[in-house]
């Protein structure tokens, strides 16, 4: 993998740090008038998800990370792996529980997800920003909280639990924002 000099640093660049592939979130070049220039960098570790700050002396170079992002559609879960497919090449990619993580509860068959691959292996799965899922369980909610303050919890077909308005019922399909885990609207079938 190529090395990158600090002068090539920019948001989105993938580099290796502490043996882990990382993505640069922010890069600021600092140069005192009479002193050594350096780069204040914010880095997201792609496996742990941690964001750390690190200062590099300008002119240093760091190892690039062999990281690619692919848009793949979700196929199925075989109990151990979640399988995704490239719609153009039909190539299939299995991702393990560690890579899928929290995304598990938002996976809908045929939805396009963004997979991050490090040296060919998935390390992260990002669901679409909005998914549509059926409600399997929720309180009828006809009486009680009529002030409409907080709605009620509803369990979705994937096991995810979201707060929904009182009028939403079992069997209905709702649209959810996966970034916040919040209910957006009902979906007309």
């Amino acid at each position, binding site marked *: 993998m190529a090395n990158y000099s600090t*002068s090539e640093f920019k948001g989105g660049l993938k580099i290796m740090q502490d043996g882990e592939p990382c993505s640069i979130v922010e890069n*600021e*070049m*600092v*140069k*005192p*008038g*009479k*002193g*050594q*220039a*350096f780069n*204040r960098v914010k880095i997201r570790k792609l496996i742990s998800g941690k964001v*750390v*700050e*690190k*200062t*590099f*002396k*300008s002119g*240093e170079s760091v190892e690039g990370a062999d990281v690619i992002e692919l848009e793949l559609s979700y196929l199925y879960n075989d109990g151990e792996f979640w399988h995704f497919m490239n719609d153009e090449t039909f190539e299939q990619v299995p991702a393990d529980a560690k890579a899928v993580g929290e995304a598990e509860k938002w996976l809908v068959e045929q939805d396009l997800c963004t997979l991050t691959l490090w040296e060919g292996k998935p390390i992260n799965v990002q669901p679409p920003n909005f998914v549509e899922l059926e409600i399997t369980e929720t309180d009828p909610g006809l009486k009680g909280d009529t002030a409409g303050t907080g709605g009620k919890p509803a369990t979705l077909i994937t096991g995810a639990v979201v707060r929904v308005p009182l009028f939403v019922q079992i069997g209905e399909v709702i649209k959810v924002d996966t970034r916040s885990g919040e209910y957006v609207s009902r979906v007309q079938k």
Partner: protein
Amino acid sequence: MTTNWRPTADWSVLVKRAELMRQVRQFFYKRNVTEVDTHLLSQFGVTDCHLDNLTTEFKYPLPFGNKKLYLQTSPEYAMKRILAAYKQDIYQLSHVVRDDEVGRFHNPEFTLLEWYRVSYDDTQLITEVAELLTELCDAPETRVITYQQAFINYLNIDPLAEGAVAEIKQNLIKRPALSEWMSEETDKDTILQVAFSELIESQFPNDVPMCITEFPQSQAALAKIDKHDARVARRFEFYYRGVELANGYNELTDPAEQRVRFKKDNRWREKHGREAQPEDTHLLAAMEFGLPACSGVALGFDRLLMIVCRAKTIAQVLPFSIDSA
């Protein structure tokens, strides 16, 4: 793809830019300081450890034989030749060019406001810089503290004491973001500069101009060494609203000492893989003739405009930043 031909700065900023230039000229006109306009292309560059000139090749024969010309990183040497010859107060507002990276506060080509006051010491010039800030950007009174006091106030370490740099280095190593670099860093001044930028400057109040005086002699640049304390130089820097704004000196006038500093810079450059640069013989000859006792300061005009306009990046105050130049 559409070509990005439009100016980077808004029209209102360009109007403010013109107004600020007029205010600068008015400020010096009232004080009887004469504007000069020296060359951008020179036979010599600078030896500064952390500055590089952009150079260009001239097509035609020049009297001095060399075809290589240096774009000036500041008008300092040329202005000092005028000072040596005429002993007058002078200022200049000019474009300068540095072979540097682009950043929030950095564009390779930018505008410097540089001025020299004959027979002023650095304290008098600091007062004048503070007045300029008040007059041009409504700044409150400048707070002046020594480099040593800044380290003591913000880090509780006396940077001039025996063994201080080792202690500062350990302090930096403890910070996760700096640990890796600082563990390997051996250059004393780089350690001090990083501590200054990351642990001290970052704690300055945002709304008060800060003037730091008496930098360590190893960071004297072209300032005189203090008569009473050889550990420090009569160099000062202004910081305001998170911006390093100006750098000034009670100017070194001794040509022998100037030669020593050129050589010291070049030794540092060679040790750190940067090409040594020819010494500016014009400047040395002018100093042999006699530079008057004077103080001078260089202030980033675009950064001053950033403060006036509350701009986040230097690109927002330039008609065209390097990205679209």
